[in-house]
């Protein structure tokens, strides 16, 4: 297989397989989790303004009082790489073009120099949180193979994408093919690893907020 055939495969059958596993995986996992249901709360509710599941879904995006100081790397590093990923994934013009071709949806892209910068900052933030995971006793203690693995499969698409655009190391075609392959790997593992928090965090925050909303505690 030469590099052009490789690119053709990852753009064609490879992408189809990955997107297929991703979509079915997400649906299956969501069903597997939320079909377990829960019991109705029979205690009398106490209403308070600002206390509900929806409130918590939004409010948990901000650090609670005192926490930023206790773990600045987690919060600041976390914000930067999540926002950075969003900019790179949804703001880069060629990505939007791909989505337009697949679904017909379209939105304006961001200047490529800005996306470039965002990619570099994202990678830097990811390296910082990785070092923090190695250095901080609690994080190291909690970490399993999955934590290192999911970091890698999240980092690779950013790195290969950036290298492809910068024409670094390998010919553009090969690097682009590797980039797409790394995204496919990410799509395949996302539903079955902790990366699935991208979906379940909304449910989790809502459940937590719902229980507290029932008690009239705005969290």
């Amino acid at each position, binding site marked *: 297989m030469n590099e052009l055939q490789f690119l053709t495969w990852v753009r064609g059958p490879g992408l189809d397989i990955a997107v297929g596993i991703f979509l079915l995986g997400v649906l299956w996992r969501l069903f597997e*989790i939320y079909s377990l249901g829960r019991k109705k*709360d*029979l*205690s*009398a509710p106490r209403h308070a303004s600002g206390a509900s599941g929806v409130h918590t879904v939004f409010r948990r995006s901000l650090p*609670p009082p005192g*926490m930023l100081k206790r773990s600045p790397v987690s919060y600041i590093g976390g914000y930067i790489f999540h926002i950075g990923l969003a900019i790179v994934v949804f703001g880069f013009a060629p990505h939007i073009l791909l989505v337009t071709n697949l679904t017909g949806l379209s939105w304006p892209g961001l200047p490529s120099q800005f996306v470039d910068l965002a990619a570099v900052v994202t990678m830097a933030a990811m390296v910082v949180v990785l070092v923090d995971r190695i250095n901080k006793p609690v994080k*190291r203690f*909690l970490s399993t193979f999955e934590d290192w693995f999911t970091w890698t499969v999240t980092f690779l698409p950013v790195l290969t994408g950036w290298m492809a655009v910068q024409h670094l190391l390998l010919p553009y075609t090969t690097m682009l093919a590797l980039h797409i392959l790394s995204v496919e790997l990410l799509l395949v593992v996302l539903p079955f690893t902790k990366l699935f928090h991208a979906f379940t965090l909304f449910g989790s925050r809502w459940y937590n907020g719902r*229980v507290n909303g029932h008690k009239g505690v705005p969290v």
Partner: protein
Amino acid sequence: MSATLEKGIRVLKEVIDAPIASYFNSCVHCGLCAEACLFYTETGDPKYTPIHKLEPLRRVYEQEYTLLGRLKKMVGLSKAVTDGELDQWQELVYNSCTLCGRCSAVCPVGNDIVYMVRKFREGMSASGHAPEGIKGAVNRTVTVGSPMNVKLPAVQAQMKHVEEDYGIPIPLDAEGAEYMVMLSSMEIMNFPEYLGAVAKIMHQAGKTWTLCSTAFEATNAGIQIGNSDLAKVIVSRIVEGAEKLKVKTVISPECGHAYTALRWEGANLIGRPFTFEVKHIIEVLGEFQEQGLLKTEGFETDKLTFHDPCQLARRGGVIKQQRNLMNQVAKNFVEMPDAGYMNWCCGGGGGASAIEEGEELRLEAFKKKRAQLDAVKPDRLVTACANCRIVLEEGLEHYQMDIPVMGLTELIAEHIPESAPQAAAKPEGA
């Protein structure tokens, strides 16, 4: 696999629901919950990270309720939960967790970790891995009626004392009273001033109230150990008493877990909504204050601070009332750092104070409270939970800090004039 372990695993399978599944799938191992837990912040030992305390429950979830987990189990790639492991986890699930809920308040993905610890305890208890101290408290509550072996005659003796001291009758089994007042054994044995304070306050407010001879004990060690069957037996006594006496409201005493057990878990334990309301004494005092039924005179002038019981504030939503009440009788009321919703636990909630072998760790964790107190240097410390009070007193004594602790209800009552005008004190229809 032993029969008790089998039972424990079966119970764990039963308690796993969609929220727990969602929580385990959302955890990204960020470790922020550790920063919220006083057992980690004061020891620096990563094993006290709240989410880690749930590892056996997580594995049962993965092995039983996920496709990949079941596959891994089939081909022998996953490690089954063992008796030895649960034994090791006892310290993490009981001694070093007071169900204070700070972890649930900070988790960025929204995991209600303490909800899971509460459920995990059901399996720990069923598999025989609960600490002896709490087991004893539960047994005494179920058989005698009180975790401290307090029986009705002891309550009656105290009623008599209070009647003599205050000249106010203490109604027992008065049908149709508006309020049924509950006590905790700790108050009956160690803090008799609580009952006198309630009598004085009710007398001034002109409210009808009663104690109940078949249900005076409000604490529920069944909740703390994690045995819903026993918790149900204990709570049913209160429900029967309240329904027999046809009271409108049952008042939970100054005890955090009694409040949670009755207010939030009670109806779910008996499987139907209550026919009466449940309020913490501080909520009732707050209402009296708003309605102008709480007339006090004079002020405390020394520096006072307030320790929020976790189950009342963070887990119970009662946060403003205690502050308004403090300000009614204190000129120099100061707040500790993190006071209110994010207050730090005394270190003895959730049954932890009943665990003898956990004492050393508890005192270590108390350094957090010491730091909070050092920041404001109060003359006295006020709280609204008899268990917090005992644990605080022990900790203060250990660290040689001369700060007396008192209950808020008692503090308020001290400012009610003796000759308070009395409205109708008889039960309706009596």
